[in-house]
């Protein structure tokens, strides 16, 4: 299978700190590529560079063969690339359905004038967006919560809502920044199943996670990062045996310690 996302040589420094140091990895359709590494390894920065939120000093990001580096973040959903955030970033005062509908903003054609005068085209579009958003909510088991204020939902539901917002536009690639952080075991199980279901749909998924049991269970490939650089890359079983990774695990804990 061909690579949907090819990231090479990503480098960025903040002051003296190199957050990314020549990071190279790729992701394929129908596969889950995990990006792991200790706190501060540069995982979120890597996602930010791919999603257009951060401009790296050097490197290349090819999406479906096209150079997307330098495109603004708002252009990504149109290309079929969406993401979630480590810190939720829900639209807390809106209801659940509206949150997901914002995820479809890139598909809306009507502008300010059409919206203010409520042209028939806009009404059709609104209906289409609401239906699509409801479908996505149903798929993620959130349909009952459609009318609830997003900011008032339990954390676990907000995490799934964040997934819904990124999923609703039917992307080809999703970047998930710690989708199970802060979830309990049952919620983590649900999220794991959902992520696998997305994989079944043929999406390419980049999964940033600290939960090693989830990563080892669902990933097709694991990219191990340390201080902004890649130290290992391969199937989970292989990566687990990698000496540098073994060294990085302190006592086989669930979490990395300092890296080598």
């Amino acid at each position, binding site marked *: 299978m061909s690579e949907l996302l090819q990231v090479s040589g990503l480098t960025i420094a903040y002051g003296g700190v190199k957050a990314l140091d020549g990071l190279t990895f790729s992701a394929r359709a129908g596969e889950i590529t995990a990006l792991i590494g200790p706190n501060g390894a540069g995982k979120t920065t890597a996602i930010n560079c791919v999603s257009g*939120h951060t401009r790296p000093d050097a490197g290349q990001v090819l999406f479906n063969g096209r150079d997307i580096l330098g495109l603004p973040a708002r*252009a990504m959903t149109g290309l079929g690339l*969406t993401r979630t955030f480590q810190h939720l970033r829900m639209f807390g005062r809106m209801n659940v359905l509206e949150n997901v509908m*914002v995820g479809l*903003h890139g598909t809306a054609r*009507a502008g300010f004038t059409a919206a203010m005068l409520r042209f028939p085209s806009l009404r059709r579009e609104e209906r289409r967006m609401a239906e699509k958003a409801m479908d996505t909510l149903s798929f993620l088991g959130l349909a009952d919560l459609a009318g609830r*204020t997003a900011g008032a939902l339990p954390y676990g539901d907000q995490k799934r809502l964040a997934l819904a917002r990124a999923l609703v536009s039917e992307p080809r690639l999703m970047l998930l920044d710690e989708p199970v952080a802060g979830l309990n075991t049952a919620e983590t199980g649900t999220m794991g199943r959902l992520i696998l279901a997305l994989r079944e749909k043929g999406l390419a998924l980049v999964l940033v996670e600290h939960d090693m049991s989830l990563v080892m269970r669902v990933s097709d490939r694991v990219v191990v990062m340390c201080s902004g650089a890649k130290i290992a890359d391969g199937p989970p079983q292989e990566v687990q045996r990698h000496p540098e990774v073994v060294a990085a695990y302190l006592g086989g804990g669930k979490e990395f310690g300092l890296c080598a």
Partner: protein
Amino acid sequence: MNLTVQARRFMAGLLPLILLVGLTPLVVTNAYYLNVLNVTALNVLVVTGLNLLIGCAGQISLGHAAFFGIGAYVSAILTATYGVNPWLALVAAALATALCALAVGAPTLRLKGNYLVMATLGFNIIVNVLLIQWDDLTGGSGGLTGVPPLVLFGLPLDTDYRFFWLAWGAALIGLLPARNLLHSHVGRALRALHDSPAAAASCGVPIEGYKIKVFVVSAVYASVAGSLYAHYFGIVTPRTFDIFKSVELVTMCLVGGIGSLWGGLFGASFLTPLPQLLHVFEEHQDIIFGAVLLLLLIFLPQGLVGRLEEALARRGIGGAVMPGDSLEERP
């Protein structure tokens, strides 16, 4: 679905309001009271636009009196000095104001952080100075007189009673596009970029462009109100459009409840007549006005409408009686 429920709730609120406005001139015949009501309507119009900017996009403008003033002066100059048709002048004024708003908004709204407050404040001061200094055109600090009344269906709107219908018609009709905008993908996008620009961008929202556009739209609301003002009073003076007016307009948004169109309506309807009512306190009226504002903001930080909705929701009445159109959906 949820969205049509919101629309129905809005209409349910608008109908009694239309009725109330329709019956008012039957009861209120005193020219002075009508005058206060007419000014209230114009303030409602400005605040509706301002509310889109503040309540939705979370951007504060301290220059809306300037846009109000540009609308008023362009209309006044074109009609009084050059004899242009007032309706045509109103459109020209709106276009001129839109261009000014674009000039102020485009560079500042691209910057991260709340630079709009400073830029609009500066803009208002500059406009005010220009209105005073450019006296060949504006009549200087004495203002410009002889602005003709608007004529509707051959009827000159030259009395408080006649103008009442236009002013309140405009105020109520002005609510509709604002409401439509709120309940569209654009309105959601504006609220989204207020909550999290990064997440909104990921959803495909053109953040800067939308902020600029909503700023321009809100300025046009002010401009239209300004044009109506000029034709109603027949005279425009710079003092009417100084920064204190801008502060007053923002206060109306805050007092009514930010982000709720009803809030703006109530805020304007409450604060416009308040100084008139406080006249009985004579030299203490400013202090009492300030005290009322302070108390309101301390005890009702969510605004009059926000508070009312909350109280009704607690009694299980919800939005059925009080037609809430607040942005903050309550479960």
